[in-house]
């Protein structure tokens, strides 16, 4: 955290990441790991946990930005029978790698957070749904859970209490849509991962029809720190409305791509130019996706935009999952958009009409454009498809995201689209072949 805003702060998630072997239980514990879970199960009520997290102002870091404490409080307290925490570790948003980074560095941090969350909703079981490609994080979590059980931190009597806690793993098998919480739940239930219509919301009818809170890896990994240091301490970081720190992944055309923990409110210029080293030699930044491929693009002229979430919302975009993709002037925006549409069409689950048909229609239109067969007609189709995908037309956010790619790239880079469609040329140079 090179830049701090407001009051004194420091890293939260990566607080211990400069120590060797934080993934090992003994190291994690020696630094203070599992003291939060111990404190929670031995001295706090579920409501006190929720209140503490509420004070922190923590919001979901999976992209939806929903207040975590509120999500937990929606789970009915008087529901008899099981309730679940489901951890969304299906990180698949193009440009986002921070959950993998957190799990590889400190699997116990996630396990501790998940256990605390289970306690907070009055449940006993957390399920970590982890994408199938994440072999190493899976193995590390598997081993870490076994260690925590062996130590008695999980099990029927964690820290000698009677509130049983368990964390279990479930592996995904390759479907971006599983990042959507209800699709994830379907998948966890052993079905084709197609999002559910809401209501009912997962808090009422979630995994296996039971009350469930679905939280992102980063969100839950933040929770132990909040318990250890207090919600107020966490809330000192960030902006008035968006508290705390968050992870970002910077990738693409920068000198030092990487995962960074930032205080919310720093500018994208700070992240891209200082933390990630800025543009590659001899090139200029052209465009960036501020929060994964699903966030509407911003042109380089808007680098001074703040990471404050409400600010981003005002611009029609979002901080999303924190995946910042940077593209410079050696790459063609139309080709980049075409590539992303191919992604959205391929990952469409096929349940709702606009996403299933619209994404594919856009792909075929982009193919014609890139084969120099475009015309005013193609521009019109893209606009129509983009409209048809957004504004509640689709069952889940995937379709909207596909629409946003088309809409935002067309809005900021209309000239590149017109060059392709009307002049059959590309204004980007020779490096174009790689876009």
């Amino acid at each position: 955290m090179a830049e701090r805003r407001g009051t004194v702060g420091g890293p939260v998630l990566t607080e211990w990441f400069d120590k060797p072997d934080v993934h090992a239980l003994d190291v994690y514990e020696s630094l203070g790991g599992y003291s939060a879970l111990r404190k929670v199960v031995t001295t706090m009520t579920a409501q006190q946990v929720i209140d503490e997290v509420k004070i922190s102002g923590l919001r979901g870091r999976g992209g939806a930005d929903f207040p975590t404490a509120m999500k937990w409080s929606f789970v009915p307290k008087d529901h008899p029978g099981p309730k679940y925490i489901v951890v969304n570790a299906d990180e698949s948003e193009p440009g986002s790698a921070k959950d993998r980074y957190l799990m590889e560095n400190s699997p116990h941090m996630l396990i501790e957070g998940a256990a605390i969350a289970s306690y907070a909703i009055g449940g006993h079981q957390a399920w970590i749904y982890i994408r199938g490609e994440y072999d190493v994080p899976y193995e590390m979590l598997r081993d870490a859970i076994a260690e925590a059980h062996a130590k008695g931190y999980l099990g029927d009597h964690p820290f000698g209490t009677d509130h049983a806690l368990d964390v279990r793993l479930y592996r995904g098998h390759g479907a971006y849509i599983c990042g959507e919480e209800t699709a994830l739940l379907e998948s966890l239930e052993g079905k084709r991962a197609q999002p559910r219509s809401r209501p009912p919301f997962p808090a009422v009818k979630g995994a296996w029809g039971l009350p469930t809170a679905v939280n992102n890896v980063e969100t839950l990994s933040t929770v132990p720190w909040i318990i250890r240091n207090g919600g107020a301490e966490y809330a000192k970081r960030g902006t008035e409305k968006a508290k705390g720190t968050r992870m970002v992944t910077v990738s693409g055309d920068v000198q030092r791509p990487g995962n960074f923990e930032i205080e919310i409110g720093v500018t994208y210029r700070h992240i891209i130019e200082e933390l990630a080293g800025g543009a590659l030699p001899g090139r200029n930044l052209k465009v960036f996706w501020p929060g994964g491929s699903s966030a509407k693009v911003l042109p380089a002229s808007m680098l001074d935009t703040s990471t404050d979430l409400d600010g981003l919302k005002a611009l029609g975009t979002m901080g999303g999952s924190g995946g910042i993709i940077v593209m410079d002037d050696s790459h063609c925006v139309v080709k980049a958009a075409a590539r992303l549409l191919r992604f959205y069409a391929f990952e469409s689950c096929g349940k709702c009409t606009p996403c299933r048909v619209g994404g594919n229609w856009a792909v075929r239109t982009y193919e014609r454009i890139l084969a120099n067969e475009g015309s005013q007609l193609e521009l019109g189709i893209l606009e129509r498809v983009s409209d048809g995908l957004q504004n509640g037309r689709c069952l889940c956010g995937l379709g909207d995201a596909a629409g946003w790619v088309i809409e935002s790239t067309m809005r900021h880079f209309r000239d590149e689209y017109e060059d392709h469609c009307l002049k059959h040329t590309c204004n980007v140079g020779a490096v174009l072949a790689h876009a």
Partner: protein
Amino acid sequence: MPDINLTIDGHKMTVPAGTLIVEAAKTVGIEIPVFCYHHKLDPVGACRLCLVDFSPGPPRPQTACTTPVAEGMVVRTQSAMAVQARADILEFELVNHPLDCPVCDKGGECPLQDFTFRHGYPTSRIDGPRLHFRKPIPLSPNIALDRERCVLCYRCTRYYDEIAWEQELTVGERGVQSFITSQFDQPLQSIFSGNIIDLCPVGALTSRVWRFESRPWDMAHTESVCSKCAVGCNVTMWQRRGQLVRITSRENDDIDEGWICDRGRFDYTDVNDPSRLRTPMIRGARATWADAFAATAAGIKGKGAKLGISLPADLTNEEAYLFRRLLDGPLKGAKVKMHGRTAIPAPAGAGRAPGAIPEKTLRIREIDDARVIVVVASDIENDVPIVDLRVKKAVSKRGAKLIVVHSDGVDLDRDPHTVHIRNEKGSAAAEVRKLASHELLKNPGGPVAILFGDGHGSEDIHELATACGDLAEKVGGKEMPLYRATNERGALELGVAGWDSLDDVTALLSWGPPPTAGIPKSVRFLTAWDHLPRPEYAKAAVLLPATTFAERQGSYTNLEGTVQFLRPPIAANPPLKEAWEALTELGIALGLNLDYAGIFPIQREAAARVRALAALAQAPSPEPQPAPVLVGPAHP
């Protein structure tokens, strides 16, 4: 449930809480188009065609099929936002659709056509090549699948999984490449498969029995009742130029909830068989009806117990009543055997003797509210398929617990929570007696439904009926005897559902198809009333051309005791005679003083004389009222 007040397009209305907007709109005749939504399936909000705009609510169109009404809600189906959203969705649906309406069996009754006409853009802006799939694909001998026409509403696969508890129909791949498929391209096996044709809102699933035969507007349809088993599902029969060309389901929530089985749907082509008998024959030569009746009367009269009468499973109440009269008179003492019936006795009057069936048995609809359902000694899926679906609904949608007592596996075992007690054949009664202390029945928490068959003869029905009756009494349950033959219950009420052996009769009146065991060797004189020539009739003295279920008036009493009326889609044109008429004339030839000018006098007489047939006094009009047409909104 409390009532909710809301407004849809300016219409104020009050509907029960929990009603979905799409259903509330129907009550005032407002059409909200849907593909994926079906009122018998769980709403999924997949096709997005039902987008409407309401407040309070988000500033985006929302699906009317998944949103329940709320107090004070104002719904606008006609706002610019909603109208455009639906038109966009319809345009998306047509991007890859082959638009082969001119050769599509669905054309003319196709929601995709109708909705596009009423809700879509008036001009086409669709460009370029469409996606292609191999087609048509035979899903089974009866069903064809056209994947290019499919709009992936998933009604078919959802029905299969939710309603039928089967998964042999599934979705392969994902995204725009997804397609409906039978498992590993194997033919569908389910007895419930045909309902997917009715469910399909486009021409993707069509009947192969009827493929490319006629356009929907060429057919006349008639509301009737299925004649294949004792459930009595309501059906619509479609005829074109005197041929029965299609049978579809007709929803009656008391009986079938809109589902029929494949026997009821596809088993009809014999009606159109070119070899059908059309004129009476005596010893192989054409004859007049009068001569045929005279010859028959001469052959069967006064034979006493040497006369056998074989009756079909789908004997109507009216025929049964006339047989009753014959058996009380000139044919007294004859042995009677009804096809396909169980050993279960007739419902008795008030008061319960051991082994007797109570007069008021469980209604099919009452299965819905059962907390525990006990199914005993019945291959329920094949015996009474649509009751099987009702049991499944009670379990999976309403949380009933299920106990099966049967010697073999049944399809209800598909629910892993089904408690299946596998008895030795013949010991079902003993197992039922033990059930009173079963965990699930100690405190059932509500009504208990006890459905029992006769184990296809393997169980002592007196024992079993007694045990089921005792159990019902102990746990506060109600019984449903699972009669199998179509009008077994009606024939039992009239005392003609015989169970006699026909082994040494010398004369046989075979009404309907020949006895399942064949014509007894001892028979010297045979009169057969049948619609098809069969090898068994080579030595028949008299052959009478019969009407089929498609040309028949009359009524059936289903297994729960409901009397339902048949409406023939095809007229029994001369020389064919309807069964009641033929029986009346036969009765006269036998010396009975019968004088019925039509079927109504028979029905009124039967209603007056037989308590269980009181419903016959109010036979409905032969022409049903047409269904109201919902008028949809204009183009965007």
